């Protein structure tokens, strides 16, 4: 049992560290973890989940704003949603999505339609990738707990 736990913990550590190293997560995620206690054991996951709900909404709004039939895109509208997406990502440590939004905003400000469409595609990919990776990470946590172990604190270094 202990050997299994140790192995899972190592797997978990490596996986989590890689998420930080590849820029999927940043120190904000670590900070949210540090706000957890016995009464709020899943605070970080809950915030991620809420943020993802928000992100879906914002990505939807951006998509609609970019699919304008008349050929004129309201870049102001796009910009507002990109800003909100950036904020929600920043709030939970979703670094890649947040960084993409910075570029996205620049395209909005330049009224660059092709740039915006490219960013939208990338944002969608990054959001979905992050979601999958976090699910994998949380799955590992579950396995550790089920094997009778404790989830190690990992801060990305």
């Amino acid at each position, binding site marked *: 049992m202990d050997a299994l736990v140790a192995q899972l913990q190592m797997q978990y550590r490596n996986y989590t560290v890689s998420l930080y190293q590849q820029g999927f997560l940043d120190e*904000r995620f670590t*900070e*949210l973890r*540090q*706000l957890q*206690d*016995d*009464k*709020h*054991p*899943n*605070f*970080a*996951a*809950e*915030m*991620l*989940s*809420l*943020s993802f*709900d*928000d992100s879906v909404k914002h990505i939807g709004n951006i998509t609609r704003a970019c699919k304008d039939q008349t050929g004129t895109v309201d870049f102001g509208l796009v910009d507002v949603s990109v*800003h*909100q997406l*950036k*904020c*929600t990502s*920043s*709030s*939970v440590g979703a670094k890649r999505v947040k960084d993409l939004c910075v570029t996205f905003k620049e395209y909005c400000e330049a009224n660059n339609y092709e740039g915006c469409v490219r960013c939208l595609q990338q944002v969608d990919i990054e959001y979905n990738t992050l979601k999958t990776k*976090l*699910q994998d990470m*949380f*799955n590992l*946590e*579950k396995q550790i*707990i089920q094997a009778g172990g404790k989830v190690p604190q990992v801060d990305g270094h």
Partner: protein
Amino acid sequence: MARDGGVSCLRSSEMMNVGIRGMESPPLDVDEVHVLAVDDSLVDRIVIERLLRITSCKVTAVDSGWRALEFLGLDNEKASAELDRLKVDLIITDYCMPGMTGYELLKKIKESSSFRQVPVVIMSSENVVTRIDRCLEEGAEDFLLKPVKLADVKRLRSYLTRDVKVSNGNKRKLPEDSVTVNTSLPPPPPPLINSSDSSDSSPPLTISPESSDSYSPLSPVEIFSSPLSSQLDEEDDVLTSSPESSPAPEESPIRRQKMESPGLD
């Protein structure tokens, strides 16, 4: 947790299952620090609530400047009957909000006779010097860069004690202004009530619940793969009546004075 855009009022554990203004609310314990937090982002609202509760504050969180004014009784001309009992020690607001910005809210608060003395802190994701200066000139006590950290909130907490000294310290938070976070938490706050209201309509004031002792926490995997709202419905309603105790601040309490001319670092 309040999922809608309403107010989560954690003023008192005796307030439950009602989310309505005008209901009788017991006066706050004079020793409890009560913070009004204003942010249109649900995630940010919940996080700032968590940070404030960790530092032993009572929190009322609203999703807009209008709701904040409504809560303070500043939304119409006749004085609110609640005003006598309304004790707000700090207002912390996001800058960028649809409708009324944090700056506009700040101005309205500073124009009011009842609340102009209450320190107002602005939060923003953008480090724009002109924005910061404008807010400080209008009377903001401090300006925090988002995402707000526990260290930032702990620093705010140090303003809010009975003994005050005046200080002209630099109030602008700069990106390089990182403080080592002491992550050892005070005793966890008592669990709050779970509202069973998960409807789409947003009442002006709702109770924001936290998990109770009898709540068996879902694992992050479960939270992550199913909509959060369905999990919230499963939480039990549990009341607690023990108020939070405020830990004594370690350093000598200071209250920052409005800066005359914010300097640039």
